[in-house]
């Protein structure tokens, strides 16, 4: 029974239930008299909906009811809301078309839900769904963004001309023009950031129930932010008072952003449970997830980096098309704008930056945040461009980065794109990575590989991310429609056991362990005596949930603030019991002491006494030992790092092998090194997945998703990955209570550029200067063939 504090690596509290098959995920829950729902989804990317005939379905065995968009419209159900509004450079707010829970009038992507069949069993609901006759009148879909912006393009939303949601910009265009005039060299790149499908291993699921006697709803959902779902769905979609709606997100099998939105299925099920007065369950199938989960990335970008004759960066110009898909998702428009452009300075001194983003509707699945969200896209543009500049100017890729890096002494550093980095030491990260990855030995490895007929390449990427979402003031200026603080309650029971109620959500990140370490360190309470409660709006006061590497940074800060208040209260109680003044009581090593004496009370004694106030001065001292805190950060946090990747490519087959991967990341103070390392491994592999394997592809003619299963959408697997070397570098964050910066997304942000830079470096002898993601063997083979035939033709 010991305190386990910051910097230690206890085994995770949450593990035993998962290892023994006793986790409780939404799909594991069964309620009495529960019916099953199946969503009828559009097979078309773009079509008018005529009549919907449910009569045959209603006759089918076990069917309870069928609901369509018209039913919801008649009940005045609202549209799915957007939590972040952006404004165009012309001052016009973004176009925000209505997003119905079930499609009305038109479907706008394959998988768009048009009806829900409810039956006694899932099999019956699914079978009856085939009998729902929807009269579709197919329309020409707009699939690529370039097509969508053409004047003659069909419109996804009739009230959005040219399918342009917003023409947005950040930075100083005139300053960049000036840099262009002065530049000795301009490096240019055109690239695509491929569409990704997040695919957490647990498919989405929901169960809604309605208790008529209490006029009360409960929704169990696979969500990263149950309180936000309660607010958005109850307050804006279904008009259910907040106190009449409980949202529970129990164990959730991975999120990565995919589960941080308010989804149509949640609202439809809750509505239906109310109408039928019985619980209704829906569990997504994987193939259904491919056409109903929000997707990620999908940019087309041109960019230019201006340099002087010494290779110093003068300016950066970026122009991006960002795909929103058929509707605006919860955070959709914020991702390619506010979470993208402010990161374009990277770890460099870049005096002038201008970034224009055209946010575009197409007949594809809605796009929103996916691990990294905007920041991997920014890093990819910048780090690819720096490599292009290095090759074109003949300056070594490490040297050109060094010449332009912000040095440790220059922090805090104000970038030209809104954000001010509080702390960091990118040079130290780079130096360490050079050493750990044995860059000195690379040329020998390249020569050895060449002997075996392989092209070996070395890729480097540095990055910075803005996370710890988010300072509400700054977020509000950027268009956030809510706050982004976090809340925590520390409840010390009379036995001195501690329950922490926190508004973040644990779905793999190990919060039950990390947060317990924080409390154990702060209050001196044994680690095993602390429980972390999350994911239930009836048990946790409030919260914004888990995304944007915010849980430890913002939630952990709220927790430590609540812990501070517990100590203050404990000191008051101790002062009373020890007949000393409050100022004279100090809390050290789990004891409340009268300064300069040996009179003391243990934490456990104070906890007990807090609930036995026999002789309390009740007018000045309340019984109980429970405190709550809200924490709103004053800035984002800025983790960063340097990643090296080595690949070998077989020029005959295009086969690519990842030979080595080294990551030096600065995530600030580390609470649990084991968990941080695990987060980095997972993040890096998701970035490698984007660079080498994953691609959400739509047929350009029909808008059908071509990669709609694990057979066509290639997930990273154990056998196509290297062992990753992680070596941390720590500079404490200057403004968070514990100096933490967040670590959930780092890996995914740094890795795609490192991998593609390695691929391009490997193919340098062939004169290849860019490869789009994913760099699959097929694509590489074609590029190599092409380059070889061009060089033969030139000879």
């Amino acid at each position: 029974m010991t305190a386990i504090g910051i910097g230690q690596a206890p085994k995770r509290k949450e593990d035993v239930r998962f290892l023994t098959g006793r986790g409780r995920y939404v799909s594991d829950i069964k309620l009495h008299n529960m019916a099953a729902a199946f969503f009828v989804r559009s097979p078309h990317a773009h079509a008018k909906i005529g009549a919907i005939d449910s009569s045959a379905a209603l006759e089918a065995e076990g069917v309870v009811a069928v609901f369509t968009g018209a039913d919801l419209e008649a009940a005045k159900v609202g549209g799915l809301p957007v939590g972040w509004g952006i404004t165009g450079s012309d001052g016009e707010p973004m176009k925000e078309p209505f997003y119905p829970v079930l499609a009305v009038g038109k479907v706008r992507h394959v998988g768009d839900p048009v009806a829900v069949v409810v039956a006694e069993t899932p099999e019956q609901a699914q079978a009856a769904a085939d009998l729902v006759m929807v009269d579709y009148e197919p329309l020409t879909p707009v699939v690529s963004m370039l097509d969508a912006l053409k004047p003659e393009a069909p419109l996804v939303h009739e009230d959005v001309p040219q399918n342009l949601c917003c023409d947005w910009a950040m930075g100083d265009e005139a300053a960049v023009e000036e840099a262009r005039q002065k530049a000795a060299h301009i490096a240019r790149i055109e690239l695509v950031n491929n569409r990704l499908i997040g695919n957490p291993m647990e498919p989405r699921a929901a169960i809604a129930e309605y208790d008529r006697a209490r006029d009360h709803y409960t929704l169990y959902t696979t969500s990263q932010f149950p309180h936000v779902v309660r607010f958005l769905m109850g307050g804006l979609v279904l008009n259910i008072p907040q106190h009449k709606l409980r949202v529970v997100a129990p164990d959730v099998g991975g999120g990565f952003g995919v589960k941080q939105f308010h989804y149509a299925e949640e609202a439809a099920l809750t509505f239906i449970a109310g109408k039928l007065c019985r619980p209704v369950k829906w569990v997504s199938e994987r193939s259904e997830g491919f056409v109903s989960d929000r997707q990620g990335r999908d940019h087309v970008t041109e960019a230019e980096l201006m340099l002087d004759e010494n290779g110093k960066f003068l300016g950066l110009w970026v122009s991006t098309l960002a795909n929103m898909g058929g509707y605006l998702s919860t955070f959709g428009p914020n991702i390619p704008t506010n979470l993208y452009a402010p990161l374009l300075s990277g770890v460099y001194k870049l005096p002038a930056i201008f970034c224009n983003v055209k946010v575009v509707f197409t007949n594809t699945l809605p796009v929103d945040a996916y691990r990294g969200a905007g920041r991997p896209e920014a890093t990819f543009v910048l780090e690819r461009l720096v490599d292009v500049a290095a090759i074109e100017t003949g300056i070594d890729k490490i040297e050109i980065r060094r010449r332009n890096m912000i040095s440790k002494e220059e922090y805090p550093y104000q970038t030209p794109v809104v954000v001010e980095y509080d702390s960091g030491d990118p040079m130290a990260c780079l130096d360490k990575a050079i050493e750990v990855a044995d860059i000195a030995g690379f040329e020998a490895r390249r020569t050895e590989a060449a002997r075996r007929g392989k092209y070996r390449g070395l890729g480097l990427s540095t990055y910075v991310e803005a996370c710890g979402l988010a300072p509400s003031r700054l977020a509000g200026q950027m268009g956030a429609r809510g706050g982004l603080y976090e809340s925590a309650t520390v409840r010390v029971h009379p036995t001195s056991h501690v329950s922490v109620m926190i508004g973040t959500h644990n779905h793999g990140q190990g919060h039950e362990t990390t947060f317990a370490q924080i409390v154990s360190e702060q209050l001196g309470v044994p680690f095993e005596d602390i429980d972390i409660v999350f994911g239930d709006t009836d048990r946790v006061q409030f919260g914004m949930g888990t995304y944007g590497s915010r849980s430890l940074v913002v939630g952990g800060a709220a927790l430590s603030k609540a812990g501070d208040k517990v100590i203050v209260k404990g000191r008051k109680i101790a002062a009373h019991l020890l007949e000393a003044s409050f100022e004279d009581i100090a809390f050290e090593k789990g004891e409340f002491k009268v300064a300069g004496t040996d009179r003391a009370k243990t934490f456990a004694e104070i906890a007990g006494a807090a609930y036995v106030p026999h002789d309390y001065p009740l007018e000045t001292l309340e019984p109980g030992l429970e405190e709550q805190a809200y924490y709103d950060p004053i800035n984002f946090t800025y983790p960063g790092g340097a990643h090296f990747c080595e690949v070998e490519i077989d020029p005959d087959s295009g086969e690519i092998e990842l030979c080595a991967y080294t990551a030096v990341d600065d995530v600030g103070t580390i609470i649990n090194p084991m968990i941080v390392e695990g987060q980095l491994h997972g993040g890096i592999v998701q970035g490698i997945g984007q660079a080498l394997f994953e691609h959400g592809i739509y047929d350009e003619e029909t808008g059908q998703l071509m990669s709609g299963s694990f057979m066509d959408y290639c997930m990273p697997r154990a056998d196509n990955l290297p062992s990753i070397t992680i070596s941390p570098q720590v500079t404490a964050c200057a403004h968070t209570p514990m100096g933490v910066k967040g670590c959930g997304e780092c890996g995914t942000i740094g890795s795609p550029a490192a991998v593609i830079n390695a691929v391009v470096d490997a193919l340098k002898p062939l004169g290849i200067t860019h490869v789009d993601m994913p760099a699959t063997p097929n694509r590489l083979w074609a590029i190599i063939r092409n380059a070889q035939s061009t060089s033969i033709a030139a000879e």
Partner: protein
Amino acid sequence: MKVSFTLNAKPVTVDVDPATRLADLLREDMDLTGTHIGCDTSQCGACLVLLDGESVKSCTLLVASLEGRGVTTVEGLADPDGGLHPMQTAFRENHGLQCGFCTPGMLISAVDFANRNPDPTETELRHWLEGNICRCTGYQNIVKSIMAGTAAMHQRA
């Protein structure tokens, strides 16, 4: 139809529709929800169980085929008194799980692998794991866990 088989070391007889998949029987009727369903194309391995000691996908296994056979699910790995199986301990020690959703399938796969290959190389193991998808861990600590768990099962330090 009636089918009798052994489930986690206990004899059971079930009366099922011949089209019933083992994964559904376990999850819906036997209250054994540790066996997960992560796909509908037999690609993810979240649903693995041991059938007479060999890992098989319960999402494509018909209960009708189980007459007289022995099934072990993740719930059956630990001792009845709660002591963890050495492979479970190895996953815990080496942080081989994050969200836990792939974990039951990984454990079943790992136990089968360790039984077949008491002294594997990491390459052999990574190759074996080709049928198990994990989205959280990047596999590194899963590989570490299984190497350690295999050694522990064969009582090497």
